[in-house]
Every structure is written in structure tokens, then in C-alpha cells.
């Protein structure tokens, strides 16, 4: 019942279930399953039921309701909510209550969605496994000894565990697509500027983008339609018409669509063969639906990860300097006035040392170094130049094709703890996803089967800027003829079948 947006809408309009009943079911499901999964950092039963009751009241009063009326939605804990804490899964913001809603949360409320809670994530969205959360790891509903992906691990896992049908994540270098892939759900990273960043707590401002997660394209299209559009409070938000994504996904024919097969991705080392196979299988599906396949190469693909890991930490080092213990958030206690560096500097150092986790500190240091005098030309400024080359690669590719097809991740979900001590291995999870962020283009992760261990694997479609409609349409066609997105994990099974990895 909680798997499909259209079903939830139908149940209500047919009078078969009320919004309160649906919200209660979601809350009950969360209560049962989240003890194991830990997808949520914050839940508020009263607020959720009150919002649902309001939808029911207005429905019975004959009022026109929004497109997501009574649909339970989970929101990544990086998006400000005026009535719930917003922590970024960091000790630094464990006590932070924003006085305002983010732009996308405003839009959710205006669409009459019922926000059930905030989801767990890698601290400040930095990570690929949701293991960097100050509030515990989130587990993969398909195999709870494994990571759900990250940084929007909670947002993907809560859908995969059928707690809510849809959720909002954010994607800076793959943080929607990679957990969606690992949790066997569908996730969209929109064009940079398509969705407001107002109230999205910044990790890397030039890369961050909010996007939808759900079981299928059918489910995320109405959510994307709700959150997209101009917001004058975000200067990088595009002031352009959005159109209807719900209408855009009608149809089954891909004739006239040229799909580029990403040669570098398919030839890359360390990629699970079942994933390469899934991409090839998907290509056949698209071809059968009328699309034309063309080999495409993006010559600078090998620089995506290094470029990303200079630009993102550089911006992060700046964005996170506001967390100094002086105005809000965590402040170190008992700073002796006689401290060696003086009380002010000591407060800064101790508050930041205590408030931030290891990965956040690592990236702040990386970024600070990359922007430092004498190094900025070799790192930050050079990365900006390479970013332009990467963007030109995509421009050239899209002059030949309408979409690009490739993998999302090199492997399926890996065991908890297996990469925490190896940041480079962890960063390589972003091998295929950072390009879209650096180029600012939209990209879609679609479930595409299982690996040898029965874990979800996925394919990625990428489109030119602002072509979300094309992307969602192709994704929808894929899901009409495949059933990977209808597979459900057996979340009732005990989580010890494979043994917990140390």
C-alpha cells in the first residue's frame, strides 16, 4: 500500500483509505522496520497525523487538494524544516532548529504531501555509505549487513523498506543515484538550478541539487513536478518554465531517440561484470523500444573524480566555516580563559573538533589546502579548468545523442565497515556519477537487476541540461517493459543470514 503514489492517491479519492490511515500505516511500518534499518533521524507522529488529518478534513470539505495530497514523504535531514530539527546527521547541528522551511519543503506542503520525518545521511552529505552519520549507520533493506549507499542512504532505504513511497534526497556527486542504485529504487538528480537550493544546507554549492527518490519513474515524476521551478531566494535557480513531468512520461515509443553508450564506463576496471551486463541488457531494451544506439566517449571521464574531489571540498571548506560554535550549533564547553590560543580561537578549534566527524574534517582540510595561496592554481583553479573540459565533453556528446547510458556504481552495496578506513576506495564509488554534477546535467538511476549475491544493481541515464522530461520518459519506457523496479526486499527476514562484517 505504501509503495505507489498513484495507488495512495486512488485509495483516498475512492474513499478506501484516509490520509490519516495511510500516514498511520507509514508510521507503523517505520516503527516496525526502522529499529533495524535506522533510516530516520527524526520522526514526529503527532505532526504527521495532524498534517494527514488536515488533508482529510479539507477533502471532506470539498476543497481542491494538491497533487501529492495525503502522500507520505520523507525528507533528507539536510533540508531545513521549521517544525523539525535539521541536523545534517552531524553532532555540530544536533540541536539546530531552523526558523524556516527550505524551498522544496514549502512546495511539498503546498502540494499537501504529508512529511513524516527526516532521513539519515552521511554527515553534511559527505560520503557514499551513510556510515559517516553522527546518529548511526543506515542499513540496506536488501541485506542489513550492507551499506545503503550515500549520502542519501536514509532517503533511499526508507523507500526500499516500504516505509514511505517517495522521499527527497540531495545529490552533490551521486548522493541520490548511488543509494537509489544500491537500494533497488529509482532516483533523479535534476539539472543544476532546476530545483531551489534555498534551505538546503550547503555541502558544495555549485554541485548540490535536490531530487526525488521512489520505486519507479511513475512515482518520482509527480514529486519532481512538485519541487521543480524558480525560487527568487536562490540566485542560481533557473527562471524557466517547468512543464509537466507526469504528462511527459506517457507513451512507449523511443523512435527517434539516440542513446549514447559510454565507452569509458563500459571499459573501466573494477566494475562488476553483472553491472556491465545489465547496462548491455538495458541497451537492448531501449533499442527494442525504438531508440538508436551509438558509441560515445567522454575523453575526460578519468578526471571526474579528481576534479570533483578538489572542487567539492574547496566549496565545503568555505560553506562549513560558519559552524564555529559562536552563533548556533555545537559549542565546546568550559573553555578556560587562560587557554593557550585565547578563549576565542580555542572555542573555535574545540567546537569544530568535537562537532565534526572524521570525513568532514578530512574534506575541510582538503578544500582549505586546495584554496590556499600558492596551491590554488595547482588545485582549485586547475580543477575549474578541467570542469570546463568535462562540460565540453558532454556538450559534444549531446550534439550527437539525446541520452547517455551507463552504470551508476562499479559494484552493488558493499558490507558495512568494509571501506571506512580507505577513503580513496570510498571516493571511487563516485566514479560514474560526479560527471553529471560537474556538468550540471540531469541523471537518472534505474533498477536493472541483481548481482551474483542478489543485491540490486542499476543503470544510469544522463540527459542535456533541462531535459528531465526526456530522461523520465526513457526511464518510464524502460520500466514498462522490465520489472526490476517491482522487486522488493524481504525486510522481515533476520539480518544475520550473512553474518555481520567486522
Amino acid at each position, binding site marked *: 500500500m505504501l509503495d505507489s503514489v498513484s495507488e495512495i492517491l486512488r485509495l483516498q479519492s475512492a474513499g478506501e483509505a484516509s490520509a490519516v490511515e495511510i500516514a498511520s500505516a507509514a508510521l507503523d511500518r517505520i516503527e516496525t522496520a526502522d529499529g533495524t534499518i535506522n533510516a530516520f533521524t527524526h520522526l514526529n507522529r503527532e505532526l504527521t497525523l495532524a498534517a494527514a488529518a488536515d488533508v482529510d478534513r479539507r477533502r471532506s470539505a470539498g476543497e481542491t487538494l494538491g497533487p501529492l495530497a495525503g502522500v507520505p514523504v520523507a525528507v533528507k535531514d539536510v533540508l531545513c524544516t521549521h517544525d523539525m530539527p535539521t541536523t545534517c546527521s552531524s553532532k555540530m547541528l544536533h540541536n539546530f532548529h531552523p526558523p524556516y522551511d527550505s524551498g522544496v519543503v514549502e512546495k511539498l506542503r503546498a502540494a499537501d504531501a504529508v512529511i513524516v520525518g527526516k532521513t539519515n545521511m552521511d554527515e553534511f552529505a559527505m560520503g557514499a555509505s551513510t556510515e559517516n552519520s553522527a546518529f548511526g549507520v543506515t542499513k540496506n533493506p536488501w541485506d542489513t549487513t550492507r551499506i545503503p549507499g550515500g549520502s542519501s542512504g536514509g532517503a533511499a532505504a526508507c523507500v526500499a523498506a516500504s516505509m514511505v513511497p517517495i522521499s527527497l534526497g540531495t545529490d552533490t556527486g551521486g548522493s541520490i543515484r548511488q543509494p537509489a542504485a544500491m537500494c533497488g529504487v529509482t532516483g533523479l538528480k535534476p539539472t543544476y538550478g532546476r530545483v531551489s537550493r534555498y534551505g538546503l544546507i550547503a555541502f558544495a554549492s555549485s554541485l548540490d541539487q535536490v531530487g526525488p527518490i521512489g520505486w519507479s519513474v511513475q512515482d518520482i515524476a509527480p514529486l519532481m513536478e512538485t519541487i521543480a521551478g524558480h525560487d527568487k531566494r536562490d540566485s542560481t535557480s533557473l527562471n524557466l518554465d517547468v512543464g509537466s513531468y507526469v504528462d511527459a512520461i506517457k507513451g512507449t515509443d523511443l523512435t527517434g531517440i539516440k542513446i549514447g553508450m559510454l565507452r569509458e564506463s563500459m571499459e573501466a576496471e573494477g566494475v562488476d561484470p553483472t553491472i556491465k551486463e545489465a547496462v548491455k541488457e538495458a541497451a537492448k531494451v531501449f533499442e527494442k523500444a525504438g531508440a538508436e544506439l551509438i558509441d560515445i566517449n567522454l575523453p575526460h571521464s578519468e578526471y571526474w573524480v579528481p576534479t570533483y574531489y578538489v572542487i567539492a571540498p574547496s566549496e565545503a571548506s568555505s560553506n562549513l566555516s*560558519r559552524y564555529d560554535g559562536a552563533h548556533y550549533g555545537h559549542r565546546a564547553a568550559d573553555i578556560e580563559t587562560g587557554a593557550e590560543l585565547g578563549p576565542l580561537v580555542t572555542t573555535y578549534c574545540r567546537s569544530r573538533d568535537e562537532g565534526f566527524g572524521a570525513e568532514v574534517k578530512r574534506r575541510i582540510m582538503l578544500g582549505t589546502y586546495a584554496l590556499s*595561496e600558492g596551491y590554488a592554481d595547482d588545485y582549485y583553479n586547475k580543477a575549474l579548468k578541467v570542469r570546463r573540459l568535462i562540460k565540453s565533453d558532454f556538450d559534444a556528446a549531446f550534439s550527437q545523442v539525446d541520452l547517455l547510458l551507463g552504470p551508476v556504481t562499479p559494484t552493488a552495496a558493499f558490507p558495512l565497515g568494509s571501506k571506512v578506513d580507505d577513503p580513496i576506495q570510498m571516493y571511487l564509488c563516485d566514479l560514474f556519477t560526479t560527471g553529471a554534477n560537474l556538468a550540471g546535467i540531469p541523471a537518472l538511476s534505474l533498477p536493472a537487476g541483481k548481482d551474483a549475491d542478489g543485491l540490486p544493481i542499476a543503470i544510469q541515464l544522463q540527459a542535456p541540461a533541462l531535459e528531465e522530461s526526456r530522461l523520465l520518459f526513457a526511464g518510464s519506457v524502460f520500466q514498462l517493459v522490465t520489472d526490476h523496479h517491482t522487486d522488493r526486499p524481504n525486510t522481515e527476514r533476520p539480518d544475520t543470514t550473512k553474518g555481520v562484517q567486522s
Partner: protein
Amino acid sequence: MSDGYPTKTVIGLEVHVQLKTQTKLFCGCSTEFGAEPNTQVCPVCLGLPGALPVMNEAAIDLSVKAGLAIDCSIPPMTKWDRKQYFYPDLPKGYQISQFDLPICADGFIEIDDPASPGQIRKLGIIRAHLEEDAGKSMHDEAAGKGDTKIDLNRCGTPLLEIVSQPDMRSSDEAKAYLNELKLRMTHLGISDCEMQEGSLRVDANVNLHIDVDGKNVATPIVEVKNMNSFRAVERAIQYEIDRQYDIWEETGKTIKDEAKTTRGWDDESGKTFLQREKEESADYRYFPDPDLLPIRLPRDRVESIRASLGEMPAQIRQRLQGQYGIKPYDADVIVNQGVAMITYFETAATKSDDGKRTSSFIQQDVMRLMNERSISIEDYPVAAESLGDLLGRVAKGELDNGRARDVLAHMIDKGVSVDDAIKDLGIESVDNNEIEDLCRELLAANPAVVQDYKDGKKQAVGSLIGQAKKKNANANPQVVRQTLIQLIEQE
């Protein structure tokens, strides 16, 4: 340093001008001065997580206007950069500023050379860039607690930082530069330029180039801060000139031996004091602010701002000289007082139809009272029309300058009109026959004066003018003098 080596003073000024916008640079908060602490703030200027800056177009227009007023070029594209440092009054941990593409570049200001009046000195301006102000830290050192309170009202207020070339050679030139800059900024409504309220702040970079037997030796550069008036800037620079020479004589340290230091100005003791030993090579890690788009300034936008500038101070000086027949110096004094004074003068001079007399009355009587009461011309108690009315009567000979001063004083005291003041003081114009009678009487009573005059001591009649005033206060001294001379010479 009076008997020392020939020395050239090198001064460069960094002036922060607060732009007169209704709202802050990146949010809708008010910029009004003097509100209760932390009442003019919002998530954006508080730097709360998730809040984003949105540029205030009015600040861009004012900056372009300012740039054009100091003959800068305005590039077609400019951008925002983050300047990063930690301080409690900087809630984001960075200041949004402009690094390598300032909104205005390469301008100049011309001043009248204080050392040789009539000569023009052209002082270069390197750049002017726009940035947001930080908040204010108020340190309370009482009882050894060392508490600091932060007021973030000012945070995000638009500032234009105008950086001059090191072209000034004396504190007089620095003052003239500041006067002219302030004049243009206030005249065009770009800024209030109130140093007391912080809407104009000046940092001065000073050092000396000493000519030691044909070899140029430069002293270490000192940046002086915390000056709260133009007078203070002047004094601080003068103090630095002397201090740096003395230190150089004492230690021989040159610019090669010591990095730039920062010194504060203490107005009370009239001295600068060391604030920061070495300018730690501060690394602000500038990079383009990804939350803001670059600013495009198309030619037509710049040109329409240029067209709206109107008359600049230099043109007004010229015009006042031609239109009211006043001297360059007098036009300079009036124009330098700002827009309100120019309007006051023009209104009064038009009414009196005597520009010269109006100019001298304003410079002496009006400005003296303004100084005494520390008021601006807006608060001067006599309206320009009334002063013009009064001076018009002097021009027509109805009363003399001295009596006019009495009338003006009475008008200020009692707040009455020109007519009422004249009536109150019993001033009436005296008939010429009456004056002739008075003069005959005085000459008859003072034969010695007549004799002195005839012996060539023409100033002897002066004593009789005084007596005439005593007998009839309304007697015009000029007329009395002429009548006395006429009568003596007729004998």
C-alpha cells in the same frame, strides 16, 4: 625631522563608503543606523545554514554611479568572491567581496594643490569594489570578564571600498582627497559619509622616501586605522611622518627590514599605537562565490547611470563663479560644504542679488554659528530666503553690514522675521539731510579732527563715525564718512 634629509611622504588611502540603500546587500533587512542590537537581521545576514544571498541591484547601480563619479572604468562583467576568515562578527566565516574583478577600476580625483593653490593635483584610484560589512563586536573588559557582545545589525550592509594609488604627498593632500571624495559621494546621494556613524571609514597607508645623498630610502609601510574624523586622519598622518623619520634615524630600518604593520590612532593622546606587529601573511583563500551569479553590466545600463549623474562638484564651482561673481576660493568653500550648502547659497544669493556679500556672510557668520553649535546647514535657524532678504537690503543701502549682523543675531535669538527684527531693533533708514545735520554738528564740535584731515591724516574722520553711530545707531557709516569728507572739502 626639520633639519634632516629631504623627504617625500607617500600616502595611499583605503576608504570604505557605506552605500545608501534601503536594504542590505544580500537580503531585505534595513540598513538604518542606530537600531537596537540584532533587530535588523534575518537568516541570510545571520548566515544560518541553508540561507542564500540574493544581490541587491540598487547597490550595483550606486557603485557604478560612485565609480563614474571618480572617473573609473566599469567593466562589462564583475563577480563575487568569498574572503575567508574567522571572527565572531562574521557569521558565515567569510565575507562576500570582490577579488580580481572589481566593479570599478582605474579612476582619479583632482584636487587643488594645497602647496600651490591654483595648481591641480591628479590623484589616482586603483579600484573600488563592493562588499558586505561585518557585524560589530563590543568588548566589555569590565571586571576582568572579557565578555564580548556581538551586534549583527550592520552585517551585510553594502560597502564600497575605494583604494587610491599611493599618490598623496602630505596630510593636506589626503584631507583634500577625502573632502572631494566625500563631496562627490554625498552630492550624488551615494552615501551619507558620516564617519561617526561608520558610513565612511578611512585607513591610511603611510611611509617616507628619504633622499640620503641621492639614494632613495623607504621606511616600512604603516597602515593607520581607527580615525574617526578627517581632522584625525590629518593628525595621524602628520604624526606618522614625524614618528617614522625619528624611528628611521634611530634604527635605520627600511621597508626591506620590516613588513607592513598596523597602528591605531588615539585621538586623545594624539599618537598612533601598534596594533599588529607583522601583517601575518593573511591567506583569505578567495574563490568565486558559487551562490551568486556573475554580474553583467551592459553598456546601456552604465551609460544611463552616467546620464543621471547631473552636475558634478567641479562644474558647480565653475558655475557659481560665473553666475554669482564669486572667487574660485569662495566657490570652493561653499561647494565643499555639500549639496545642502550649495542650495542654501544659491537661494540666498538669488534673493539678495549680491553673490559676493552672500558668500562672505555665509563663510563668516553662518559657518561660525554652525561650528559653534556643531550643526549642519539644514539645522541653521535662518532660512536661505530670509538671509537673502536681509542681505538684499544691505545691498540697497538700507542698512550696513554691522546692523545686518545685529539683525541676523536677533533673528536667530528670537526666531523672528527680517522685518520684525528690524522693527525690534528700531532700525530705520536715515534721511540724508538728517545725516548732513549730524555731521555739521560733529565737525563744529571737533575742529582738531578737521585740521588733522586737512593736514593729510585722512583716517582722522574715523573717530567721528564712531560718535555719529552713538548719536544715531541707524546712521550708515559709509554715508557718514562720505558726508564728513564732502563737508570738510567744501570748506
